[in-house]
C-alpha cells in the first residue's frame, strides 16, 4: 500500500500531537494541501481562523476527505486509530470520487474583473486595478537606492513549516524579509524554554523540525520515539535509540546547515537545536523534565523574534523560527463545526 498523503490543519493545542502521525507507515504528512488526499482537522480552530480553514479545505484537490481527530473514538492508541480512520476514508473516497468533500467557500472570484477596464482584464492604467481578480504588487524603497516591488503575504495559521496557529504578516522584497509581524489570537507573548515540557512533546518538536530541514526519514524516527515515550514511562531502550538517532543525525550535515543562522547574542540555530537535544537526552536518561537551559532557548517575545528575523531571507527565517520550540498561545475556544 502506498502511504496516504495527509495535510494537517491543526489548532495550536493539537498541532504537536498531529506530528506523531509521521511515525505511521501508511500516512505521509505533506507540506502543501495540493499534495494531499485527506485533510486532518485537529484541535480547536478559532472563529477568526474559520475562513482560512475553509480555504485550505477547498485547496485540496478532488477526491478529498476530511478526518477530524477529536471525533475518533480511540482505544489506548489515539494515533493508530486516527491513522486507520485516515486510511479507511482515503480508500473510500478514491474508490468513489463522487463522495469527495464538497467546497465550503462560495465559488466567487475575489474581485470582478471580466470586462472591466480598457482591456477587459480588470486592469487600470499601468499597474492599477485588479487584473484577473487581484491587484499587482507595488514598489517600495529598498537598500542601495533601489525601489522594487514589495510582496505582502499573510502566512496563515495552517502552514506545514510553521507551528500550527502561527500567523505572520510578512513583507518581502526579493527573498529578504523587510518587515514581519506575528499575530496572536491571544495577547500573550510567545514563551519558550521557560517551562518544563514532557519529553514526548520535545521529540515531536524534533520530528517537525527535521521534516522542515528536509530530513523526512529522520523525522519518522523521531516521531516513533515520541510515541514510545508517550506510551511507556520506563522504556530502557529509548535512551539508547535516541542516542543512535542523534549519532546518525551528525552525518546529515545539519550542523553546517544550521550554523550561524539566526544569531542572537552569540547563539545560532544549531546551538538551540543542541540545547533541545541535550534536554531530550537528559530527560530520557532519567532526569526530571526541566526547562531547556537558558543558553539554548531563552524566553522570547513575538516582537523580539520579529526583530531577529527582519533582514533574513525567508529560508533562514523559517529555519530560525523552527529552532525555537514556540508555544503558540492557546487560541480562543470557538470550535469550527466539521
Amino acid at each position, binding site marked *: 500500500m502506498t502511504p496516504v498523503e495527509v495535510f494537517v490543519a491543526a489548532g495550536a493545542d493539537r498541532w504537536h500531537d498531529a506530528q506523531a502521525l509521521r511515525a505511521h507507515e501508511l500516512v505521509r504528512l505533506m507540506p502543501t494541501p495540493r499534495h494531499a488526499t485527506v485533510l486532518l482537522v485537529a484541535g480547536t480552530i478559532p472563529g477568526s481562523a474559520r475562513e482560512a480553514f475553509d480555504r485550505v479545505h477547498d485547496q485540496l484537490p478532488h477526491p478529498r476527505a476530511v478526518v477530524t481527530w477529536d471525533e475518533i473514538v480511540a482505544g489506548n492508541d489515539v494515533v493508530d486509530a486516527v491513522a486507520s480512520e485516515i486510511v479507511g476514508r482515503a480508500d473510500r473516497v478514491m474508490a468513489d470520487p463522487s463522495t469527495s468533500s464538497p467546497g465550503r467557500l462560495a465559488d466567487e472570484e475575489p474581485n470582478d474583473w471580466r470586462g472591466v477596464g480598457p482591456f477587459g482584464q480588470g486592469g487600470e492604467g499601468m499597474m492599477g486595478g485588479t487584473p484577473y481578480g487581484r491587484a*499587482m*504588487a507595488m514598489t517600495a524603497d529598498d537598500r542601495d537606492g533601489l525601489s522594487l516591488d514589495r510582496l505582502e503575504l499573510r502566512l*496563515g495559521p495552517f*502552514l506545514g513549516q510553521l507551528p500550527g496557529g502561527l*500567523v505572520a504578516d510578512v513583507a518581502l522584497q526579493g527573498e*529578504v524579509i523587510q518587515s514581519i509581524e506575528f499575530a496572536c489570537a491571544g495577547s500573550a507573548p510567545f514563551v519558550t524554554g521557560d517551562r518544563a515540557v514532557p519529553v514526548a512533546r520535545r521529540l515531536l518538536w524534533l520530528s517537525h523540525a527535521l521534516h522542515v530541514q528536509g530530513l523526512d526519514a529522520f523525522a519518522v524516527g523521531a516521531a516513533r520515539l515520541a510515541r514510545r515515550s508517550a506510551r511507556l514511562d520506563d522504556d530502557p531502550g529509548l535512551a539508547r535509540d535516541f542516542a543512535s538517532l542523534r549519532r546518525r543525525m551528525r552525518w546529515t550535515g545539519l550542523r553546517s546547515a544550521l550554523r550561524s543562522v539566526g544569531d542572537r547574542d552569540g547563539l545560532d540555530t544549531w546551538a538551540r537545536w543542541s540545547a533541545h537535544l541535550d534536554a531530550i537526552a537528559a530527560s530520557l536518561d532519567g532526569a526530571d523534565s526541566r526547562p531547556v537551559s537558558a543558553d539554548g532557548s531563552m524566553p522570547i517575545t513575538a516582537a523580539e523574534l520579529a526583530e531577529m528575523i527582519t533582514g533574513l*531571507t525567508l529560508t533562514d527565517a523559517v529555519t530560525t523560527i523552527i529552532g525555537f520550540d514556540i508555544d503558540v498561545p492557546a487560541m480562543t475556544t470557538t470550535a469550527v463545526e466539521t
Partner: protein
Amino acid sequence: MMSALAAVLAVTAVALTVQAAALVRSEWADPFVSTAPQRVPFLGGNEPATHAWSRFHVRYYPMTLVFVAFEMEMMFMYPWAVVFIEEGATALVEMGMFLTILGVGVVYAYKERVFSWQ
C-alpha cells in the same frame, strides 16, 4: 544516414510532445473543475493580497555577472581541451593565466559581498 544532431532533436521533440500532450489532455479531460476558492495560491489559508508576479529583487544579480564572465571563458576552454595534449605545457600555462585573472575577479567579488545577500 541521419545526422546525429537530427537524432537528438527528434528524441527531444518526441519526449517533449509526449509529456506536453499528457498534460494538456489531463487539463481538458479533468472531471473536476477548479472552483474560485480552490484556485487561490496556497499561503496557509489566507489569500495573497497581490499577484505573485512582480519586480522581484533578485539579490544575487552581481553573481550572475561573474557567472557570465566564466561562461565566456568556458567557451574558450572547450576547444582548448581538445588540443591540449598536442600543445603541451604552453596550453596549461596559458589557461592557468586566464583562470588566475578570473580567479582574482572572484576574490574581489567575495570581498565585495557579491555572494551574500542578507
